[in-house]
């Protein structure tokens, strides 16, 4: 591309020959006010703010519409130009509300910045009130305050040019023009793909994101992709969904593998925080992200990611990891890649932790877990199974340079009054383990599960599958507040499991160390105070239920005690600092043992963090990032799809329609590719990149 030299305000600057005068000036650090111009959109020349005078051109011209020429002499600040700009801005402000401070775009508004730059205020002109600005209505994703619209047309162009959608237009009604949807219908009835491009380019507060759609406690670029932000491991979800849509399953798995060590297991049992963040949830239902991940993994025939893994040279430093669950195995894998000698101690016959001994086999078959563990072990991890480590001192003479404790939270936690050794009561974690080991005897005809979380339902459904006639789940939460996945609950109901929600056990009748019956009350609510659990009991609601077995699914905690050799918090949790190091130098802890029960994916994320910290501690750079899929430049155009807003979720259980489901994605990540216009106060405009004449 040819370069041309031109003179702007007494500076000789250089520019590519196809640039506009405005672009050339802005790039060179010479600020020219502009509003309808946006670096990603075709210039329109309708705001008149980028007015300049050019020697040899009659009158004032718009710099966004003039292409640079060799030897051009441009003046951006003559009296006539300033006048043109002032009047244009005054006119825009005449129909724009003056209540800047009550606008959510306050201090973030390009119009406000221009008022400050030019010194123009709402002043000598008549206030003009337009009626049609009230037509536009907000929906659950996009807030439209069209009285703040200055009709720069950026949103219309972004929708049309960038996205190829064309849901917005300049409309005319009763002699007034305004930005609206074609036919003034709600966005859900247009071709809108809810990509947020219009919000991104709007210079004022006219089109904004609805509050609550994006998290406000993280950096903006992170918050704009809610699924990725909510995922504890921050997997690049929009990208792998797009790749699934293109039937590029191996590439999708590359993206997944960059962040997740047990992708297939997660595809089956992940608690999918991503889906609770999914922006599509505000349109109708979240994308079935978990299922799409499983589908990608199951259809990845090439396993390209394995050829892309980068490895540091082997070193002789040794890391011992206690506990072969998701956190421990993840840390081990990343550390092995970083060249460390990595050994994992697992007390059970199989590694995998809760994947092998917690989650019932009907949800997560053991074969799959074993396969994923084998894949990780290929990196050179030694796993000592059937090896219990009950105290750090056991590992001391083995000469580890660092030790990581990832022993999880494997002990049941009951309400204090029920801590009795009844022969027919079990903690959920033990019940699940026994079931996984295949040594669950005959539970009896009636099994009662106390606790309505995921683990409670795992127990109840396991019991039902064992042939128990009556299985009931008792939980204190009301039906709509239950903690288990709604999908689990509805499947339990289909399996004829009784759910007694909004109820609490107030008494347990016992005889010969056996639980005989339970007294239940209905409750309106409950709370935990200094005195312990407080119930809001419905009077006269007490009932008595007989049971052959009771399972307490009321929580889990780590099994650590003082003899372990590190400082503990809350009785049994490992105390760690910001870098996951325990009270003992070189000893780290991660996963459930530090924060209590969360999820598999949280444990994986914690294991990654531990790997970073241990690497740093052992003199490495602490970087475990790896790219298995080279990012391609994304096509900004997404086009239209018939009745996009109405597309409903299809779960991919049996004959998975992954193409159809992945199409529903709002592709939030595309918004990050839209450039941000620099404000005039930006440091970029402090020095001119050119030669003073």
């Amino acid at each position: 591309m040819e370069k041309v030299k031109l003179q702007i305000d007494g500076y000789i600057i250089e520019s590519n020959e196809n640039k506009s005068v405005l672009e050339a000036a802005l790039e060179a650090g010479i600020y020219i006010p502009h509003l309808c111009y946006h670096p990603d959109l075709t210039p329109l020349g309708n705001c008149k703010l980028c007015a300049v005078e050019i020697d040899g051109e009659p009158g004032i011209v718009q710099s966004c519409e003039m292409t640079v020429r060799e030897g051009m002499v441009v003046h951006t600040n003559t009296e006539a130009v300033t006048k043109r700009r002032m009047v244009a801005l005054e006119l825009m402000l005449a129909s724009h509300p003056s209540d800047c401070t009550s606008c959510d775009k306050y201090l973030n508004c390009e119009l406000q910045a221009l008022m400050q730059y030019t010194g123009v205020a709402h002043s000598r002109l008549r206030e003009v009130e337009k009626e049609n600005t009230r037509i536009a209505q907000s929906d659950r994703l996009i807030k439209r305050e069209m009285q703040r619209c200055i009709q720069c047309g950026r949103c219309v162009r972004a929708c049309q040019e960038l996205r190829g959608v064309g849901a917005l237009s300049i409309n005319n009604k009763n002699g007034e023009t305004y930005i609206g949807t074609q036919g003034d219908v709600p966005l859900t009835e247009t071709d809108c793909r809810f990509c947020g491009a219009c919000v991104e380019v709007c210079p004022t507060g006219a089109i904004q994101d609805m509050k609550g759609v994006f998290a406000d406690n993280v950096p903006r670029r992170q918050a704009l992709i809610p699924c990725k932000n909510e995922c504890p491991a921050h997997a690049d979800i929009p990208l792998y969904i797009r790749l699934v849509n293109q039937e590029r399953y191996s590439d999708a798995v590359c993206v997944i593998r960059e962040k997740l060590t047990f992708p297939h297991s997660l595809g089956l049992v992940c608690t999918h925080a991503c889906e609770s963040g999914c922006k599509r949830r505000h349109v109708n239902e979240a994308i079935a992200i978990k299922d799409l991940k499983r589908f990608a993994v199951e259809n990845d025939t090439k396993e390209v990611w394995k050829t892309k893994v980068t490895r540091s040279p082997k070193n002789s430093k040794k890391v011992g990891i206690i506990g072969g669950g998701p956190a421990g195995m993840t840390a081990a894998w990343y550390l092995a890649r970083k060249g460390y000698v990595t050994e994992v101690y697992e007390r059970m016959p199989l590694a995998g932790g809760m994947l092998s001994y917690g989650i019932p086999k009907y949800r997560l078959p053991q074969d799959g877990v074993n396969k994923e563990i084998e894949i990780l072990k290929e990196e050179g991890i030694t796993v000592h199974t059937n090896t219990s480590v009950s105290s750090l001192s056991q590992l001391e003479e083995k000469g580890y340079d660092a030790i990581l404790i990832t022993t999880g939270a494997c002990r049941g936690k009951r309400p204090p009054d029920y801590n009795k050794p009844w022969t027919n009561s079990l903690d959920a974690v033990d019940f699940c383990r026994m079931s996984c080991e295949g040594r669950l005897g005959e539970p009896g005809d009636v099994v009662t599960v106390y606790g309505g979380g995921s683990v409670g339902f795992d127990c109840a459904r396991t019991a039902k599958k064992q042939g128990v006639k009556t299985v009931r789940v008792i939980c204190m939460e009301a039906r709509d507040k239950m903690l288990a996945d709604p999908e689990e609950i509805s499947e339990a109901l289909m399996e004829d499991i009784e759910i007694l929600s909004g109820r609490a056990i107030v008494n347990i009748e016992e005889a010969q160390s056996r639980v005989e019956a339970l007294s239940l009350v209905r409750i309106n609510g409950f709370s935990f105070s200094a005195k312990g659990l407080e119930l809001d009991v419905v009077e006269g609601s007490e009932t008595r239920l007989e049971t052959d077995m009771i399972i307490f699914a009321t929580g889990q905690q780590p099994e650590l005690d003082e003899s372990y050799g590190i400082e503990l918090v809350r009785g049994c949790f490992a105390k760690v600092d910001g870098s996951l190091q325990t009270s003992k130098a070189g000893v780290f802890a991660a996963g459930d043992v530090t924060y209590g029960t969360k999820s598999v994916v949280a444990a994986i994320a914690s294991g990654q963090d531990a790997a970073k910290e241990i690497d740093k501690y052992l003199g490495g750079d602490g970087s475990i990032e790896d790219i298995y899929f080279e990012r391609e430049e994304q096509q900004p155009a997404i086009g239209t799809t018939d009745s996009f807003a109405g597309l409903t979720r299809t779960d991919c259980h049996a004959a998975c329609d992954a193409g159809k489901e992945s199409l529903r994605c709002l592709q939030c990540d595309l918004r990050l590719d839209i450039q941000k216009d620099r404000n005039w106060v930006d440091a970029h405009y402090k020095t001119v990149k050119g030669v003073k004449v």
Partner: protein
Amino acid sequence: MICKKMEEKHSTVLPVFDPDDSSGCVVDYCKNLMDYARKESCGQCVFCREGTWQIYAIINDITEGLARSDDYELLLDILLQMEQGASCEMTREAAGRCIRLMREQEEEWDKHLRRKRCTNLVCRCSYTLYIDPGVCDGCGKCLEVVPAGAISGGEGMIHIINSDSAAYAGLSPSICPRGAVKKAGPVKPKLPAEPVPAGSFTAEEASGEGDTSRRRRRRG
């Protein structure tokens, strides 16, 4: 240039001004011209979309007697930018015509702006409406078409317009089929204070030389 309204036709379909029309007013014409242009605007360029609205709003204020002291200069200020900067021929032409007519007929504009007068009593600021007691026959037809309270009087009585009424601004001479509703400029006719039987009121009866009220000039 972005606007489709560049075709010559738009400058020719703009309303035409006839300086010899004794029932016309240059200020009123400019207002209508801008009203036409603002409704035709495609909404893209700021001078057309906002400029025409602003000019219309200012001239409308002038015709209603709500002019501000610097409105003449303000109009020219904006119109000049519109004439040179608008993206379409329609708005450039409309703005140019306004500028020409403001300069050519500065006296008439000045009359509107400073004295709230309109030579041909076209603009609202320049006249009050009254019912000519010599024409009104008390038919009551006007009462049927105006909001309650705007006009008092009964059948067979001379009606009287209540200029304090909130509905006054909405009245026009066309409400009387006999043409009894008339415009009064600075010189106000003598009218009965209360409705009296039709045909019973004569101007001489109530008139006295000194009673003719003249509007006080606001500014010199």
